[in-house]
């Protein structure tokens, strides 16, 4: 089973809110000087791919798109966790690209890698939360697509997946090749790599291509970001006067007025 896992480096979503800033010129989150991490669900996708490899064999390739200097750590971590190969598409423009734009480059890279049975992505990125890369990739690669999966089992030319749905769980069978977007689950909590494996990963080669190398055609972005802003939250504190009974009455009236009860 040949699996390609797409990993995205994002500004650490655990950073406190005051560290979040938007560059007004690019209308994108400021990345310079911020710690970058693999987007949360992408790590789940990688863990799922590694568990599949341990069960049925095959190869796991970690693929990432971004400025090479910034994103190499992501694939190094993937190698330390157990991925067999790592590919960086060096693209300084990547942080400006949105889903369709990005999917076009990734699809070209996956075609160049050749013979992927499965392509796994996180179900959404921690920064833009577009949820679009997996379906777009499937379309571009002519592959089946299932989103929000937490587990999978491969058969002859097929993959059976557990898909998280609002009302419960769907069990879905898809033909291969398939693009699957992965959500979180305790069973696919990303493993912590051993220090020894991290050092080993530093010595493994990382394939580096440009979008032109993989023959990605420039896509005119179908979506343009016009404005991005940080929501301004204002809080107001009001003291209710009177004895406890009056305060309770006043509180009930306020909550009813706000249609909260």
């Amino acid at each position, binding site marked *: 089973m040949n699996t390609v896992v797409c990993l995205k480096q994002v500004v650490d979503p655990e950073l406190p809110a005051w560290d979040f800033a938007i560059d007004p010129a690019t209308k994108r989150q400021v990345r310079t000087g911020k710690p970058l991490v693999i987007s949360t669900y992408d790590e789940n996708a990688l863990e799922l791919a590694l568990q599949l490899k341990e069960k049925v064999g095959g190869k796991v390739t970690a693929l990432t798109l971004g400025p090479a200097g910034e994103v190499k*750590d992501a694939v190094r*971590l993937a190698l330390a966790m157990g991925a067999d190969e790592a590919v960086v598409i060096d693209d300084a423009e990547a942080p400006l690209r949105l889903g369709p734009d990005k999917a076009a480059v990734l699809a070209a890279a996956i075609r160049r890698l050749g013979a992927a049975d499965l392509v796994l992505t996180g179900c959404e990125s921690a920064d833009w939360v577009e949820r679009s890369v997996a379906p777009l990739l499937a379309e571009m690669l002519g592959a089946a697509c299932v989103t929000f999966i937490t587990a999978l089992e491969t058969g002859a030319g097929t993959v059976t997946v557990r898909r998280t749905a609002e009302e419960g769980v769907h069990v879905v069978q898809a033909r291969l090749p398939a693009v699957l977007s992965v959500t979180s689950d305790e069973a696919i909590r990303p493993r912590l790599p*051993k*220090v*020894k494996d991290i*050092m080993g990963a530093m010595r493994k080669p990382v394939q580096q291509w440009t979008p032109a190398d993989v023959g990605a055609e420039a896509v005119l972005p179908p979506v343009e970001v016009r404005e991005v802003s940080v929501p301004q939250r204002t809080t107001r504190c009001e003291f209710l006067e009177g004895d406890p009974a009056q305060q309770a009455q006043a509180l009930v009236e306020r909550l009813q007025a706000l249609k909260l009860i």
Partner: protein
Amino acid sequence: MYRAVDFRLSDEHRVVQAAAADFAAREILPLAADLDRSGGFPQEVIRKAAEAGLLAMTVPEAYGGAGLDAVAYVIAQEELARASAGVQTIITVNNSLVCEPILRFGSEAQKRTYLPALASGRSLGCYCLTEPASGSDAMSLRTSARADGEHWILNGTKIFVTNGVEADVCLVYARTGPEPGARGLSAFIVEKRVPGVRVGKIEHKLGIRCSSTAEIVFEDARVPKANLLGEVGQGGRIALATLDGGRLGIAAQAVGIARAALEAARDYARQRTQFGRPIADFQAIQWMLADMATRIDAARLLTLRAAWLRAQDRPHTREASMAKLFASETAMWATHKAVQIHGGYGYIQDYPVERYFRDAKITEIYEGTSEIQRLVIARHTIGTRT
């Protein structure tokens, strides 16, 4: 072309830092407050640390270690201590005070017997130097070892032994000859399961509460001759060389505690509002935070310099003492300021800074008090090295 001093971490050191930070965030931080309150030994955390390769970081891969250098070691220790100084103490003792001397002074057989077990977590190490009557004056210790056929017979009492309760492998210093001071000392690898070794009083501590501190009593303990570490009479040298490395671990621990205190104080100051604005807007608070940040950076740089010298196999006794002295006093000072910035909230257990404050104190005491560090530095400065 001048070769500049380079303050950037190498790629390798950066990834080790990230890995240790991830481990700390996921496996230690969520438990840190509870471990401090309960004082229970974090068995599961230590098992996972072993799995991650954190228990024998500088031991070569051939003996089951992670094969890293001293710089990687201190970088990782800072990250671990930032989450829990108690957990990091357990780990640093196993690394610096037990694996390192076995690696540096042990026979091939000793390395093959003990290092893989200490690296994998099958064994845990402890360091038995201090005695009731010999603390800072360590070389006057009285525990005795006399030869008896194929064994050494050990008698004496060691106190304040970190990991003393859980450890299986003890590095023990004992007097083997009539010569006074360091020259009469030898070092032994003692398996705690041998008859005649028992855990005595278990201490209750101000900080680093999830690590055990115990008395270990040797009563006619029979230790195989093969377990002498180095040569007879080499104990003093081994002890001092080991403490150079140990002090790096404590310096990094102090930096980690101080950094945790700074981060907590900064976060608090940004969200705590008084007189209609965040207290971080007040210069009184800003100056405290600025001084904390500056001293912590200085402590870290001293620690990295000492670690770099060790990694290059260059003399580093003076630099390790400076790092340990400055970092530990910075930790005490910075945690004190962090409590102050938190006001009343700093004094209660709902916030972590009172734990940092309690944990910081030990760094000025163990592996050589601040006074002993000053003595070491003074000897190197003035030129009297005896």
